[in-house]
C-alpha cells in the first residue's frame, strides 16, 4: 500500500483499510521490512514522518539522485530561521530578527516558497512550521525535536572545556 501512494501514506489511512492493526504493530512490521531491505542490500527503506510512512532512498545514494532532480537549497541563514520557527514558533519576524541580529526577510520568503513554514492566521503575523517541514525532517511532531535548553547547556560544556584549556 505504501508503494502505491505518492508521497506518504498516513497511518490513519492504513488503519482504515486494515482495522484491528494497532499503530505499534504497524511500526513493528515496517521495522521488520526495513531489516529485510537492509540485509538484502536494497537501496531504500521505509521512513516514518508526520504520522505517515513513505519509501525513501538510502543516504548513500543521494549524490546520484541529486543530479537528477532540481536542488533544494537550505542556506545556513535559512536553517537558522527555520530552527527559530520550529523551536520558538509561532513567532513573529520581529522576534526572529531580534535573536539573529540580522534581517531575515529573504530567508523567510525562501522558506515560505519551499512550504516549510506558513503564516498563522491572525494578528500580529506569526510564522509556523508546516506538515511538509515535519515530513522533510523526519519528525512526527514538533515535540520530537530535542529540548532547546540542551543547546544552551552544550555551550556550558564547551565553556568548561575551554576553561580547562585556558588553565593549562
Amino acid at each position, binding site marked *: 500500500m505504501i508503494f502505491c501512494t505518492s508521497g506518504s501514506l498516513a497511518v490513519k489511512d492504513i488503519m482504515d483499510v486494515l482495522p484491528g492493526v494497532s499503530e505499534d504493530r504497524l511500526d513493528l512490521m515496517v521495522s521488520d521490512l526495513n531489516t529485510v531491505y537492509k540485509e538484502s542490500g536494497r537501496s531504500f527503506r521505509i521512513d516514518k514522518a508526520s504520522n505517515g510512512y513513505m519509501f525513501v532512498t538510502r543516504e548513500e545514494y543521494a549524490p546520484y539522485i541529486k543530479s537528477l532532480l532540481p536542488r533544494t537549497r537550505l542556506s545556513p541563514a535559512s536553517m537558522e530561521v527555520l530552527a527559530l520557527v520550529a523551536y520558538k514558533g509561532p513567532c513573529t519576524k520581529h522576534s526572529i530578527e531580534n535573536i539573529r541580529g540580522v534581517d531575515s526577510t529573504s530567508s523567510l520568503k525562501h522558506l515560505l516558497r519551499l512550504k516549510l*513554514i506558513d503564516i498563522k492566521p491572525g494578528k500580529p503575523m506569526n510564522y509556523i512550521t*508546516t506538515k511538509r517541514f515535519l515530513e522533510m525532517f523526519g519528525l512526527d511532531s514538533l515535540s520530537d525535536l530535542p529540548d532547546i535548553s540542551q543547546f544552551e547547556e552544550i555551550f556550558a560544556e564547551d565553556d568548561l572545556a575551554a576553561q580547562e584549556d585556558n588553565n593549562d
Partner: protein
Amino acid sequence: MNLAAKSQPASQQDFILHLNVFEGPLDLLLYLIEKNRFTLESIDVCPIIEQYLEYIENIRSLNISLAGEFLEMASYLIWLKSCLLLPGTGEDEQDDKINPAEELKEMLIAYRAIKLASSDLRDRPILFMDKFPRGEPQGGKKLPEIGIGALLEAINTIRKRTRLYVMETHSTPFGIREMMARIWRMLGENKKIALNDVIDSRTKTEYIGTLMAALEMSKASLARLMQKELFAKIYIVKR
C-alpha cells in the same frame, strides 16, 4: 588570521575568504570569543569589542559593503565599551549592578543556541536533500496544498502585474448642472434657501453634488453662500 597586517596581500586574501562565513554581527562576535578562547561566562568584553571594531574597519578599508546590522552592532559596542570604562556614579548602586554587558551576553547565548539547533536540524537526513521519496506517478495531478503564505505571494504577484488603479465610479443621480438648475429654480421662489432644503435623499454623493453646484453658482456670481459660524447651516442667496 592577522587582522593588523593590512599591507600583506596574503592575509588580506585570507581575510576576504573569512568574510562570507558570518551570518551577522552576533556570529562574528561568537567567532571572536571563540578565537580568544573566552567562555561566555568569563568574557573579557573590551578586547572583543576592539577586535570587532578592527574587523569592521578592515572590511571598510577594502571597500566591501557591509550589512547595516554590523555597523549598528559596532555603535552599540562602542556605547557598551564607554559604559564599562566610566566609573559608577555611586548614587544608584542598584542600577550600576545591572551590567550592560549582560544584555550582550544574553543575546549571544540565545543566538548560539539557535545556531546549534539549526546545525543539529541540518544534520538530520532531509527529504529531497539526503533521501528521496518515490517520484510522482504520471497522470493524476494532485492539487497542491495552499498555505496562507502562497496566497499572499499570489496576491502580490497579481498586484505587481496589474499596476492599474481601479477607479470606482458612482453614477450620480444628479449632474452638477442639473443641480445648479434646480437651485436656480428654487431661488426663483425664495431669495434665500438653505443648502439642506435642496437635497432630497441624504446621500453623501448628493450633499457633495449640491455643495459643488452651489460653489459653481457662487463662482459664476449667480448666488452667494452664507454661513454664520462653523458648522452652522449654509444658505444660498440669490444675487
